[in-house]
């Protein structure tokens, strides 16, 4: 196959000058429509609040490009969809670059400098690459059609858990139609492109430089062979091509013009959302802006432009819908639907030429596009949705900011209201007297140092549950004993400690959170210590990630890393291997929030336990249901609970003996759920501290909480 140096693709061959002009007019119109659409979207985003994006645009850009090119976030937990999208993405990008190359040659370099590069060997490779790109794109599109039409994964079902059938907002069939229109349009553009290529080859089959190099466009060439075999002449090929050329061209231009008005805009909005993501979105919630006169997000304009932009990035992939523990137990919440509702609301209000009156901007309620309080209160702020979102939508801060408004108006469960008042009054959620916070230490045979009065190496921030809950007090006593046995110089704040506020903040009671954070930062500042250890992942998260905003910067670790160090240094000597078959539950605030996945697993290995992972582990760990203040809100009677759902998952592990937790709330939630899910006797729930204690103990001594043998 000799590559003639003159070979290129005909563009406007045999077109009358007026046809060419018409094409350009339509082309510029499409671009103008695209530009206008972009303007409309940008105007919509600019109606949001300032975002306060941290600096470093270049690193942000680099990280976004790396994420987009690798499809890292898209392939997570759905390899097939990731692979198919990768085909569509690279196919589309190559075809776009190809078209851009022609434009550069024909409309820019040619007219300006009189030179052309789009011919000869370069053209032939160009043809080959684009033909392959078309195959990639079509392959990806066909898989997506197969997925939507036949596989029908539940996460792509747009039925809403927060609306009843018949509700004007329930029907999301518009999205379904758009999905199919998108797939068919792109597929049609690809298919007509190939047919067009084949018709051109048939038409110009008498030109050797075209026909002899036809296999550089393998798909077109194969089709052309078939057309000729079917008896198509060069002349009829040319005729057909004329009509199809306009159809293909118009469809492609229409596609471009519609990008900003349809789901196709995710090409840009997803990149924007990824670029301006907050890597600590759920870990460190935003403070209430000083200039804001009302609390939290009440109006659509209270959201930042970045949040509004990310609403448009959602492609309804359903990963958050699938991961959400509230949705899994039938609560009226799907993170996806919160995002889509707000997007529809923003389009209707902020998308209008004139910004509507403030009253019409209220996003709370049961009307179209509004979010109901039942939905907002269902959230456990476990971060499962934020973690898995491939386009960096940050649902948790959006939900918490909306809850702040509900709290301000007292629209919350009476039990929660009472708990918040109790925490304000006593500094703890148990309503106990402050002076009783350290009462659990009285059961110890040694005194625990008062870190307010003497210098300690390690300050132990105990937290509410570990201080006041009788079951957890035993674990606290165990941990204190471990520290003493290891010779750690440690102390606690006694009644100087208040509820750390992590969950109060996630409830949306920002004012109370500020009071608690300031009180604890004050107490910690007055104490003298080198580092903090905490047995409570919730306290760990807020002290580590949020107290710096309140002037409290401390070296802090969760107890799992400290225990691992003590075990590895031999300061705690294991007396025996436990030989238990266990599974480990990653607490949201230790795992997903702060990436503390390894230390507890390493400890279990040192203890000689056989760790069998549950399907949902590490970053995909399934919330116990207590987060976001839900531990203070009664679950609906009779309804399934996330903790029960988790117990069923664990019960599926054959011969499981111990369900290991490393969070006081987990211990409470799962010991309860073990019974209510009907799995009592099959395995037991234990704190990791209890297992360490048992491995240290001599076999004949009685551990604090003996492990029941697994039922056969």
């Amino acid at each position, binding site marked *: 196959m000799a590559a003639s140096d003159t070979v290129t693709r005909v563009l406007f061959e045999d077109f009358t000058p007026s046809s060419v002009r018409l094409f350009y007019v339509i082309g510029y119109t499409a671009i103008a429509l695209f530009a206008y659409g972009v303007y409309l979207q940008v105007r919509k985003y600019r109606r949001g609040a300032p975002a306060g994006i941290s600096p470093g645009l270049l690193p942000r850009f680099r990280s976004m490009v790396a994420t987009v090119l690798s499809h890292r976030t898209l392939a997570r937990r759905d390899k097939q969809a990731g692979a198919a999208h990768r085909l569509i993405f690279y196919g589309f990008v190559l075809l776009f670059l190809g078209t851009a190359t022609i434009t550069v040659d024909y409309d820019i370099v040619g007219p300006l400098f009189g030179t052309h590069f789009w011919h000869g060997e370069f053209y032939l490779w160009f043809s080959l690459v684009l033909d392959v790109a078309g195959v990639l794109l079509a392959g990806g599109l066909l898989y997506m059609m197969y997925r939507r039409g036949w596989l029908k994964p539940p996460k792509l079902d747009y039925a809403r858990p927060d609306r009843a059938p018949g509700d004007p907002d329930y029907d999301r069939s518009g999205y379904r139609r758009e999905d199919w229109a998108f797939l068919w349009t792109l597929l049609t553009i690809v298919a007509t492109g190939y047919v067009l290529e084949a018709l051109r080859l048939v038409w110009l089959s008498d030109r050797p430089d075209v026909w002899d190099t036809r296999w550089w466009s393998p798909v077109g060439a194969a089709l052309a062979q078939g057309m000729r075999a079917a008896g198509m002449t060069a002349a009829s090929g040319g005729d057909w091509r004329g009509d199809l050329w306009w159809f293909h061209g118009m469809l492609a231009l229409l596609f471009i013009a519609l990008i900003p008005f349809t789901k196709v805009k995710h090409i840009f909005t997803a990149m924007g959302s990824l670029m301006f993501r907050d890597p600590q979105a759920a870990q460190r919630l935003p403070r209430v802006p000083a200039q804001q006169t009302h609390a939290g997000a009440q109006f659509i304009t209270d959201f930042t432009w970045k949040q509004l932009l990310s609403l448009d990035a959602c492609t309804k992939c359903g990963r958050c819908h699938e991961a959400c523990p509230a949705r899994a137990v039938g609560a009226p919440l799907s993170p996806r639907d919160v995002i889509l509702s707000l997007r529809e609301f923003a389009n209707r209000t902020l998308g209008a030429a004139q910004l509507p009156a403030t009253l019409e901007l209220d996003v709370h309620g049961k009307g179209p596009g509004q979010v109901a309080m039942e939905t907002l209160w269902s959230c456990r702020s476990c971060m499962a949705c934020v973690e898995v979102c491939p386009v960096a939508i940050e649902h948790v801060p959006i939900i918490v900011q909306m809850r702040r408004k509900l709290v301000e108006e007292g629209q*919350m469960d*009476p039990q929660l209201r009472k708990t918040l008042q109790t925490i304000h009054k006593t500094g703890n959620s148990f309503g106990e007297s402050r002076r009783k916070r350290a009462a659990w230490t009285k059961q110890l045979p040694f005194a625990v140092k008062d870190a307010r009065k003497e210098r300690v190496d390690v300050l132990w921030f105990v937290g509410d549950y570990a201080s006041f809950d009788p079951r957890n007090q035993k674990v606290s006593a165990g941990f204190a004993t471990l520290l003493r046995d290891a010779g750690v110089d440690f102390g606690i704040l006694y009644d100087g400690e208040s509820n750390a506020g992590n969950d109060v903040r996630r409830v949306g009671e920002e004012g109370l959170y500020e009071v608690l954070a300031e009180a604890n930062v004050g107490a910690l500042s007055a104490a003298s210590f080198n580092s903090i250890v905490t047995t409570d992942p919730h306290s760990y998260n807020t002290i580590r990630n949020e107290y710096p905003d309140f002037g409290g910067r401390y070296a802090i670790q969760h107890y799992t890393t400290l225990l691992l160090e003590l075990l590895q240094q031999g300061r705690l000597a294991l007396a025996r291997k436990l030989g238990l078959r266990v599974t480990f539950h990653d607490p949201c605030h230790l795992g997903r929030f702060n990436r503390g996945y390894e230390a507890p697993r390493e400890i279990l290995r040192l203890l000689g336990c056989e760790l069998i992972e549950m399907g949902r582990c590490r970053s995909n760990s399934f919330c116990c249901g207590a987060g976001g203040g839900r531990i203070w809100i009664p679950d609906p009677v009779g309804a399934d609970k996330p903790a029960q759902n988790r117990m069923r998952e664990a019960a599926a592990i054959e011969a499981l003996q111990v369900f290991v937790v490393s969070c006081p709330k987990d211990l409470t939630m799962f010991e309860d759920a073990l019974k209510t899910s009907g799995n009592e006797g099959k395995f037991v729930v234990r704190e990791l501290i209890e297992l360490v204690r048992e491995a240290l103990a001599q076999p004949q001594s009685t551990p604090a909480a003996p492990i029941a043998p697994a039922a056969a």
Partner: protein
Amino acid sequence: MKLLVAVKQVAALDEDFEIRADGKDVQAEFLMRDLNEWDDFSLEEAMRIKEAATSPVELVVVCVGPEAADEALRKCMAKGADRAIRVWDAAIEGSDSMAIAQLIAAVARREQPALLFAGAQSSDHAFASTGIATAALLDWPHAAVLTELSYSPGARSARFRRELEGGLLHEMEIDCPAVLTIQLGINTPRYASLRAIKQAAAKPIEVLSLADLSLPVSAVGASGSLSRVRRMYIPEKGRAQMIEGSVEEQAARLVQIIREATGGAA
């Protein structure tokens, strides 16, 4: 149009408290202070009238107490009270509910409200008398332990319901100005967010002395009170013992116990 709500900062016992040396009260350090629970409901009831009103209604809260009571008043302002008055003078220390009523009545004369609200009782001393005594001093009609209220600002009377024994409901009408004491559960009190409480901290609280109310020192304190605390104490725990043995033995033991308890008179 004005509504006046009298509130009290009550004391709740901490665990393991101790009695004061003079034996007349609990040591202050063992007391936790908070707004009286009944007052949450009476304030809410007044707030509802204010919010449903078409013409402006001023809601004033009044509290007799030292500076620490400002916290209770701030909570009321956080919930929406327009103005707060605190009455205090060193001489007021040790006043009973009758003396406190003198002070509240004096404030009511100054403010001239259409309705004066009070809690049916306070959770610490539970005399259930301050509101009623105030009505007597003002010579206004009063109604106690309301469970439902309907009043439109400017109306000459208010209608209300009270629960009586045996499941009876008492529906009545009362002429204004009147004193109403409110029962728990009449409504659902709103939540005062910390943000609102902090904002209320910036609002002024008017502090009135005896002189401001033109009351003599003798009207309050021990001299103005009709009752005096003799002592406050924790009663000895009752003792119980099982009497065992045969019927005769049990009877003999019982007689012995009765003799011991009555000093051998029986």
